[in-house]
């Protein structure tokens, strides 16, 4: 567990008032002259702390919810064992075969196209897009993915970005199968990183590094440049910034919403009966996650392409982000929580504590003067 650092003040600007969301129902504005009791009675503050210790909305977002075990009696257990044999002994090798075949086809077509058609950019890009969509389809087939797409397919127009809720890196593959998006992602190590720097680079993908605070300015500039270009692949952004367990949404980062272009929301909901698609990056590597998917029965999900939204007059980017988050959460049946996903990696800024201190201090001083 790496040491948590206090979050950079830059992140503060991303958050609306958390107080609006936190449970504080029992704390009414105290009235009347200040007495000893009012200073010594710390029960509301203690209750809030104990409430957070017992259950808190942030940790709930990242809890893996494996499907209920159903193999618990004498009749179902042999059936389940048979299922395991089928999944691991038959389906898995078959899927590995399909995936390997897909990679062979992809790589044998991609490199010639990439190198030989260097001059003819338009054709090359078109073919590369088609090939990426192809390999993603192979990936989806390797998990027996049953994906239902609802709504109009994304079109290639400038000055638009697509935003979606984030459950796992496979979200990218699920969406990429239908449309070759350029996505903005965290740079990963290992074989994923290799794929990122070679193939995904050609799609126009943008990389960022969560731990670099200066990175943000560079990334914003790259985003702006990308959306201006008419020939660039449509840009896909996951504004939550981290994988959430597909029951909740965390706060959207405003970066995608202050580019001055149309935002097209996409909602993704996985059906948990078949497999829990949440990638708990703290518990599993991506390779393990993929293997888990490949040894399950199927990955079933719904993808909704929702109505494009624009910044309303008088709306701030944060309000815009919240509005779009609302649209996506309602469509996919997710609950909203008021936390920044990056709190997985850093602690909340002292500003929130200070706000509480300020409100209590003001109340004390005010009541001191009352008769």
């Amino acid at each position, binding site marked *: 567990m790496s040491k948590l650092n206090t979050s950079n003040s830059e992140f503060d600007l991303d958050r609306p008032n958390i107080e609006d969301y936190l449970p504080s129902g029992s704390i009414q504005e105290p009235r009347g002259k*200040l007495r*000893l009791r009012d200073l010594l009675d710390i029960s509301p*503050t203690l209750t809030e702390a*104990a409430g957070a210790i017992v259950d808190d909305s942030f940790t709930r977002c990242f809890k893996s919810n494996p499907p209920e075990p159903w193999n618990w009696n004498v009749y179902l257990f042999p059936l389940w064992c048979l299922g395991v044999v089928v999944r691991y002994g038959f389906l898995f090798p078959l899927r590995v075969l399909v995936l390997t075949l897909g990679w062979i086809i992809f790589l044998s077509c991609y490199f010639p196209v990439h190198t030989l058609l260097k001059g003819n950019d338009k054709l090359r890009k078109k073919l590369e897009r088609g090939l990426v969509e192809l390999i993603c389809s192979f990936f989806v087939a390797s998990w027996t993915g049953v994906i239902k797409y609802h709504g109009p397919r994304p079109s290639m127009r400038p000055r638009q970005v697509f935003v979606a809720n984030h459950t796992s890196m496979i979200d990218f593959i699920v969406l990429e199968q239908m449309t070759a998006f350029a996505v903005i992602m965290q740079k990963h190590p290992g074989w994923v990183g290799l794929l990122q720097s070679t193939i995904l680079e050609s799609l126009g993908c943008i990389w960022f590094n969560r731990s670099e605070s200066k990175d943000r300015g560079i990334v914003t500039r790259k985003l702006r440049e990308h959306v201006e270009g008419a020939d660039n692949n449509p840009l896909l952004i996951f504004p939550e910034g981290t994988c959430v367990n597909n029951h909740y949404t965390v706060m959207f980062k405003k970066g995608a919403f202050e580019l001055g272009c149309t935002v097209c929301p996409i909602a993704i909901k996985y059906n948990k009966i078949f497999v829990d698609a949440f990638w708990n990056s703290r518990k599993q590597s991506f390779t393990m996650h993929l293997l888990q998917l490949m040894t399950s029965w199927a990955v079933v999900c719904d993808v909704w392409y929702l109505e494009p939204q624009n910044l309303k007059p008088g709306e701030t980017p944060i309000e815009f982000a919240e509005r779009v988050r609302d649209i996506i959460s309602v469509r996919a049946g997710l609950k909203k929580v008021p936390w920044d996903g990056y709190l997985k990696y850093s602690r909340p800024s002292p500003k929130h504590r200070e706000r509480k201190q300020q409100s209590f201090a003001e109340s004390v001083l005010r009541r001191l003067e009352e008769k």
Partner: protein
Amino acid sequence: MGNTSSMLTQYDIEEVQEHCNHTFSQQEIVSLYQRFCQLDRNGCGFISADEFMSVPEFAVNPLFQRLLRMLDGLNFKEFVAFLSAFSSRASLQQKVEFIFKVYDSDGNGKVTFNEMLDILRDLTGQFISEQQREKVLTRVLEEAGYAKDSLLVQADFMKIVGNSGLKMEVEVPVD
């Protein structure tokens, strides 16, 4: 109740229930155990300060430091006993005792002016000057009949904050 196993036996549950004076039901204890294991990510049998601070709702609480000191190194049984003051079955006495313990940082059964000032500082931060804080505390103490150098004991706390209006309850989610 091993650190390695995530299963509580019936004996374990009863032992914990005994230790917290039956303020939690057995189902609540099981839920609390799941929560304990969820927070104790490295599985060493107690929740470290870092692990508590990874709960944002806890980290923004003004009394977090004081509570971290009280929660430091508690095993599950002690963790449940700590939370027992927040159960709906806890008596008013138990709740006041908990508040008293938060104030009494040196644990000598007496709360001094400075100990009260410490808590007031945590609650108000930089928004009241140190001088003003002392003045406010001295004034309300005197109005309640206590001199500035009085030492308050638990019975005093019971008199001051202990009445039926004291709300200090937390619900343990039970699946």
